């Protein structure tokens, strides 16, 4: 889950990293009021996505009037699909130099990675492409942690003026905040040195590891959940992984790999999947709410049910599905592929209760569903 700047910066502050004085404002008037207290400010759109500057979401203001005018513009913006509803009004810093600092989970080394660059204020992806030599990286043994010595080693040989110790201190504290909050990514860009020599975090990006939210409930409440469609939100509520897509062939399967493959095979046969919906793992008892969700997608013309039981047992999934089927009595063609743990029982159930047989394999089921959807579409167009 992503956190907006105003929700991420308190983590830095709590770790002992200096951040500018700021206020959160929801209206232009609140912005003007904050600027009266803070003096020269920067007004920053709050959105859970980057590139706010390019989108016109960051403006400087020397007076409350200017701040008000800036907020009026920014609060009308939409950034990466998110309507801007809040601005952070922040005391302006006298910037001498800009750096980049981050700690993240690195799949390649299977451990934390501390990153630092003297090229601050730009997208780190761009820096990595243009001047990869400007990025310092330190692999961390998570059992040992990252201490002052490690930070000094990482910064060795870099021209940092008198800010070396201040920056080293920030890196150590940033690592501690990353650990304490189960961050997937904790980034300061830019980390600046001011005219008075202070090292200050001007921005902060924080992504929490979704699997760790269960031990950070209070913190997670200040995050910005992914933007979900109505159906996707229903899936999340019910503990079912559901992603809405733009096609017309519904998909209900168990396990991420199998569900993805069902979508691939539908594509392979010239169809378009309407959704990703899987009831594998602990969700294998949830066939009923899953079916309801899949069927509620507007424009769905046929359905593939693909069960391949390992941990998820076919007979449990089939029973749930058939219960839901009886209740909803949907009027659309459905094609089954059933294999794995509990398949015999599930196939018998399907025959007894729906009078249907599974197709020979998932390709046959997907192809039949694609054909049926195309048939349906033609029929619809012809009146």
């Amino acid at each position, binding site marked *: 889950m992503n956190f907006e700047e105003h929700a991420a910066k308190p983590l830095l502050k709590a770790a002992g990293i200096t951040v500018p004085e700021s206020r959160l404002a929801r209206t232009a008037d609140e912005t003007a009021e904050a600027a009266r207290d803070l003096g020269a400010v920067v007004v920053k759109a709050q959105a859970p996505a980057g590139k706010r500057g390019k989108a016109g979401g960051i403006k400087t203001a020397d007076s409350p009037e200017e701040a008000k005018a800036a907020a009026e513009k920014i609060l009308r913006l939409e950034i990466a699909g998110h309507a801007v509803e809040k601005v952070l009004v922040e005391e302006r810093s006298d910037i001498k130099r800009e750096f980049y600092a981050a700690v993240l989970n690195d799949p390649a080394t299977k451990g934390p990675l501390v990153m630092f660059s003297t090229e601050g204020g730009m997208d780190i992806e761009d820096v990595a492409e243009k001047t990869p030599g400007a990025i310092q990286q330190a692999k961390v043994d998570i*059992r040992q942690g990252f201490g002052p010595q490690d930070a000094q080693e990482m910064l060795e040989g870099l021209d940092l003026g008198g800010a070396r110790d201040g920056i080293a201190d920030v890196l150590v504290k940033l690592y501690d905040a990353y650990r304490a909050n189960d961050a997937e990514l904790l980034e300061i860009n830019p980390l600046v040195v001011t005219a008075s020599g202070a090292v200050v975090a001007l921005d902060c990006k924080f992504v929490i590891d979704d699997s760790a939210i269960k031990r950070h409930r209070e913190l997670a409440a200040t995050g910005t959940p992914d933007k979900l469609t109505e159906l996707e939100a229903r899936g999340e509520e019910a503990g079912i992984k559901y992603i809405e897509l733009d096609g017309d062939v519904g998909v209900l399967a168990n396990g991420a790999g199998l569900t993805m493959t069902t979508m691939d*095979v539908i594509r392979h046969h010239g169809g378009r999947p309407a959704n*990703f919906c899987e009831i594998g793992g602990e969700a294998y008892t949830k066939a009923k709410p899953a079916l309801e969700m899949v069927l509620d997608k507007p424009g769905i013309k046929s359905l593939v049910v693909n069960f391949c039981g390992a941990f998820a047992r076919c007979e449990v999934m089939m029973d749930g599905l058939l219960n839901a089927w009886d209740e909803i009595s949907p009027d659309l063609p459905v094609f089954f592929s059933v294999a*794995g743990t509990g398949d015999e029982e599930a196939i018998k159930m399907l025959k007894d209760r729906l009078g249907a047989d599974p197709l020979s394999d998932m390709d046959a089921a997907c192809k039949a569903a694609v054909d049926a959807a195309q048939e349906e579409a033609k029929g619809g167009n012809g009146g």
Partner: protein
Amino acid sequence: MIIVRRQHRVLIQGITGKQGTFWTERMQEYGTNVVGGVNPKKAGTTHCGVPVYASAVEAMKETSFDVSVLFIPPLGVKDAALDAIEAGARNICILTEYIPVQDVMYIMAAQGAETDITGPNTAGSVTVGEGFMGFMPAFNERIFNHGTVGVISRSGSLGTLMCQNIVSAGFGQSAFLGIGGDPIIGTTTREALEALDNDEGTEAVVIVGEIGGAMEEEAAEYAAGMDKPVIAFIAGGAAPVGKKMGHAGAIVVGNRGTYESKQKALQAAGVTVLATPSDVGGALKERLGS
């Protein structure tokens, strides 16, 4: 990575839970040599016909074991795995999904040279006719039949489907190695491929991969030097960019981890890349010449 054999002594951490009990019984029926279980609250009792110990360290003192299988909820996995590492397990099979990533990294850092970690978020592994670990339908003969095809899979469900297709095409498996769908896992596709390359009972390998990460590309480098034929299917070609497709590891960021990148690397290494899992039988016939 070890391929589980009949003589391997297996410990089940979390043996007394509902899933732990159900799958321990299936493993025992199949022939897996389960020598004990762990539950600190039930130490000294017997469950599924084997003794329950307070910890893996205790279990190692009382009865040696090679492999530990964890049926443990996400927030308990770190402690359980560290216990198994301290005990000196050769392999730890972590089935659990949604373990905090920093806990996983801690386990990986602690594992040492003597211990292999399989998973997290794996369905386990099967050595046909010898034993299985985790929750794979090893006992279903339409899915697992003795043969010479080794299977590596990030996904349990899709791996199961692939195994069924292999059997219905008239082939059988030597071993199924589930490696897990998380972004950070112990045994990689490449390491599993190496294990099957060195396995005498394996004549061909089927890799069931997914979009995301770089494991299939790394495996391709190894496959290029293999004599045994390798066949692969990569799931997620139709997945939208930037969305996690169920598995936390299955996400395409920018142009990293894409279907095309994996397909290209594998094909360049002489690997047959399947358009759909149903094509596996034909590909095996072609590559093995049956």
